[in-house]
């Protein structure tokens, strides 16, 4: 169909497009000129065009008048109040959620910290243990046999020993931490030769008993049981003592 044919106008097409002659962007608007020309030559279509224009005018007058209509101002107050309530509710919910999340995070951190604090010994890093042992002011006597008499001196700090040696001294209380001071010679052990071939024995005695042996203890609580390591000479005489604190 040519453009001329596309723009041709007859009564049928006129009736089809008469209602959108003034509506921009429509086919009717494109055909407006042809429609007006047709209406001038066709009585019926001319009347229809007049009626349509009258209707358009009335509708635009109604639309124009309606623009002056406004809703009651109280409605804005009501709607804004609803917005504030809804938003306040949402804010409260968000705050509660944030508080709950913070609480949960705090609880998790606490649980993590406690589990770390009370973790089993086997989970502890051997490196950390080694460092702790190296730094501990422990004076260790060879586990079963004391070879060097000069090593045992009261209140003298010895060189740190490897962790394995330390573990051998304090491995009889698995699950508990031990802190041992250096060995102190007992008052009557004045002959270092007696130390040769001696053994280390773990004992648990009352404070009063240990004090009577010559351990440097106060005897305020005589019933308290205190673990201690004793260096026992081959004839069974305690020669030196060290206290072992346990957690």
């Amino acid at each position: 169909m040519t453009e001329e044919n596309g723009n041709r106008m007859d009564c049928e097409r006129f009736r089809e497009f008469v209602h959108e002659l003034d509506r921009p962007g429509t086919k009717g608007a494109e055909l407006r000129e042809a429609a007006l020309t047709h209406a001038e030559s066709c009585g019926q279509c001319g009347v229809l065009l007049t009626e349509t224009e009258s209707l358009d005018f009335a509708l635009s007058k109604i639309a124009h008048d309606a623009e002056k209509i406004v809703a009651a101002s109280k409605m804005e107050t009501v709607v804004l109040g609803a917005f504030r309530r809804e938003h306040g509710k949402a804010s409260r919910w968000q705050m509660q959620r944030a508080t709950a999340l913070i609480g949960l995070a705090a609880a998790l951190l606490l649980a993590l910290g406690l589990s770390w604090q009370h973790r089993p010994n086997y989970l502890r890093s051997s490196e950390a243990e080694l460092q702790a042992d190296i730094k501990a002011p422990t004076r260790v006597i060879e586990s079963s046999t004391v070879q060097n008499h000069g090593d045992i001196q009261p209140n003298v700090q010895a060189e740190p020993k490897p962790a394995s040696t330390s573990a051998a001294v304090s491995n009889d209380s698995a699950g508990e931490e031990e802190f041992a001071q250096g060995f102190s010679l007992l008052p009557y052990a004045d002959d270092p030769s007696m130390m040769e071939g001696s053994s280390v024995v773990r004992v648990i005695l009352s404070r009063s008993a240990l004090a009577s042996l010559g351990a440097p203890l106060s005897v305020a609580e005589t019933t308290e049981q205190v673990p201690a390591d004793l260096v026992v000479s081959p004839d069974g005489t305690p020669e030196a003592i060290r206290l072992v604190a346990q957690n």
Partner: protein
Amino acid sequence: MNEAIPITDDGLLRRMLAGDEEAFTLLYRRKHPAIYRFALHMSGNAAVAEDVTQEVFMTLIRDAKRFDPVRGSLSGFLFGIARNYVRKRWVQDQRIVPLPDDAGDLGPAAFKMSGHANGSGMGGAPHANGNGNGMFSTAARAHDELELLETVGRVRQAVATLPENYREVIVLCELEEMSYEEAASALDCPVGTVRSRLHRARALLLEKLREPAMARSSVAGN
């Protein structure tokens, strides 16, 4: 030159969703007149129109996230909500269309009828200018204006008595001057449907407007 750039509806909506009361107020002031007019035209009752408008914005407050910019404009979304609430009210009130006598219920002065009971057929568009001076031209202008007012009143009545589907497109496309696309978005139907409904609605209006004139001319002929 430093001109203020108007904030788009979408921008205001985003701010509103973030809890910005000022944005919501702006959006309300921008949109509520058209929604109110639509509800008023559709229900013919100012109280119902206020209820509907309020419900539309309450829904926007609660369910603004339902709006999808891909599916249409915010206006279309709001008109769609308004349309649903008007229908709900019709079902509740069992009042499909207002009676012609209730036209006064439309409330504001803009909706008042002209008060002329005897129609003289469809009035033409007002004369652009008077050709004569003096009493004749004054009388002619007064007659034209009277005729125009009467036509407007009758068109208003005719719109109020249109079936719902047709009234919607007349209100949206003619009174709110929406494009076919915008109306289609509000009515949730294809553009072609809007076009055909509008065509049919206007034809119905013309038929309704012709009726009194035909009746009168037949009476005069007898």
